[in-house]
């Protein structure tokens, strides 16, 4: 690793140095291509974010891909019903690594106003590894842009080697997640136990 002071000094002299890791992460974070799909009203805000006023292309994420094979980012924009969930997980499984998930809006995070409904999944993080959660109902396009910037910061700090390297660089880490079956009363299983654990609660009466 080159000392940062020396790096800056060299830059003044017109010599640009970088590390493979920085170059690799810079390339990845600057071309996060989202999968083009929306589930509910949050998708309208996602569309607004891609239009000229908010202009998601400033962040290199304007290329909404119609095929999961070409996408890096899944923006779960809207209410995920239990009937829709197997398709959402299947789309995620069909995306190549490295891949990321943004849960956009109250519904995708927790079920939102429909949490008590018989047909609504109480948060997509029960089945998918979510990188960034955006609260809001629906979140403003600025919030989606902020989530994208948060994701870019996360990608920026990824290490290529070592224990903390991201999932796609670990040979034994899963890149696909089990698709639940339609059961008689609920999805089977009702959550991915390895992925989702409710927050531990300590409560005094």
């Amino acid at each position, binding site marked *: 690793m080159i000392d940062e002071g020396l790096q800056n000094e060299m830059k003044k002299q017109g010599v640009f140095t970088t590390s493979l890791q920085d170059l690799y992460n810079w390339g990845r974070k600057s071309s996060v291509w989202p999968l083009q799909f929306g589930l509910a009203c949050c998708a309208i805000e996602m569309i607004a974010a891609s239009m000229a006023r908010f202009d998601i292309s400033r962040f290199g994420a304007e290329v909404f891909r119609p095929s999961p094979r070409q996408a890096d980012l899944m923006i779960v924009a809207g209410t995920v019903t239990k*009937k829709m969930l197997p398709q959402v997980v299947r789309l995620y499984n069909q995306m190549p690594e490295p891949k990321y998930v943004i849960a956009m809006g109250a519904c995708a995070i927790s079920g939102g106003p429909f949490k*008590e409904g*018989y047909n609504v999944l*109480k948060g997509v993080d029960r089945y998918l590894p979510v990188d960034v959660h955006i609260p809001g109902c629906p979140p403003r396009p600025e919030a989606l842009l902020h989530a994208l910037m948060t994701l870019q910061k996360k990608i920026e700090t990824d290490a290529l080697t070592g224990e903390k390297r991201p999932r796609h660089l670990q040979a034994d880490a899963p890149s696909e997640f089990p698709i639940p079956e*339609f059961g*008689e*009363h609920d999805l089977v299983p009702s*959550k991915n136990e390895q992925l989702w654990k409710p927050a531990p*609660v300590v409560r005094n009466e």
Partner: protein
Amino acid sequence: MIPTLEQIKARIEQSVPGARLEIIPNGSPANQPSLLVSNEHAVDVAKFLRDDSELRLDYASNATGIDWLEKVVKEKVKVKRMVEGVEKELEETVEKKTPAYLEAVYHLYSMSLKHGPIVLRLRTENRTDKTHLPSLTPIWRSCEFQEREIFDLYGIIFDGHPDLRRILMWDAFKDFPMRRDYVAPDDYEYEPTPHDAVLEKAKCHFPIVETPEVKP
């Protein structure tokens, strides 16, 4: 002008012999009474309502279901009794049990004569095993998806429906989620401020952990 419900009832009884009809009053400010039709004549009655030159109810805008549980209704009845040799009129409360049934409600309008709505009701015999009703989809095609929805959420089986499948839930689903005794699967998670029923649920999912008191 559309005839009153009483006039419509009389005309149906004239042209569909044997049809048992009952006008169900509505006590709410809307004051919109509805017509309860016997199941075996429902299709004939519907055909009459659609084809009659004065009614022409050619558009069923809405079909929905209702789940009525068995309940006890208290009614005040005036009874004549002999009290100490003198006949007196007394008020007594009588408890009445209303039967449990499922109901399908249809709202009918006329596009050609621009009037409506007329509200039709069909009732099943009970809400456990005899939950069959005649389908009105052959009369009003717009009922097709709505009757499928009623079947999906309430479990009313519409005889004569061309394609009776679940429409919102998946085919393997066994429950009827809009029935009043439906119990949702217990996939509880943390609530920040639980109370009442939610508190009870929270107690069983997150047993109380005693934390040692922190001394200042």
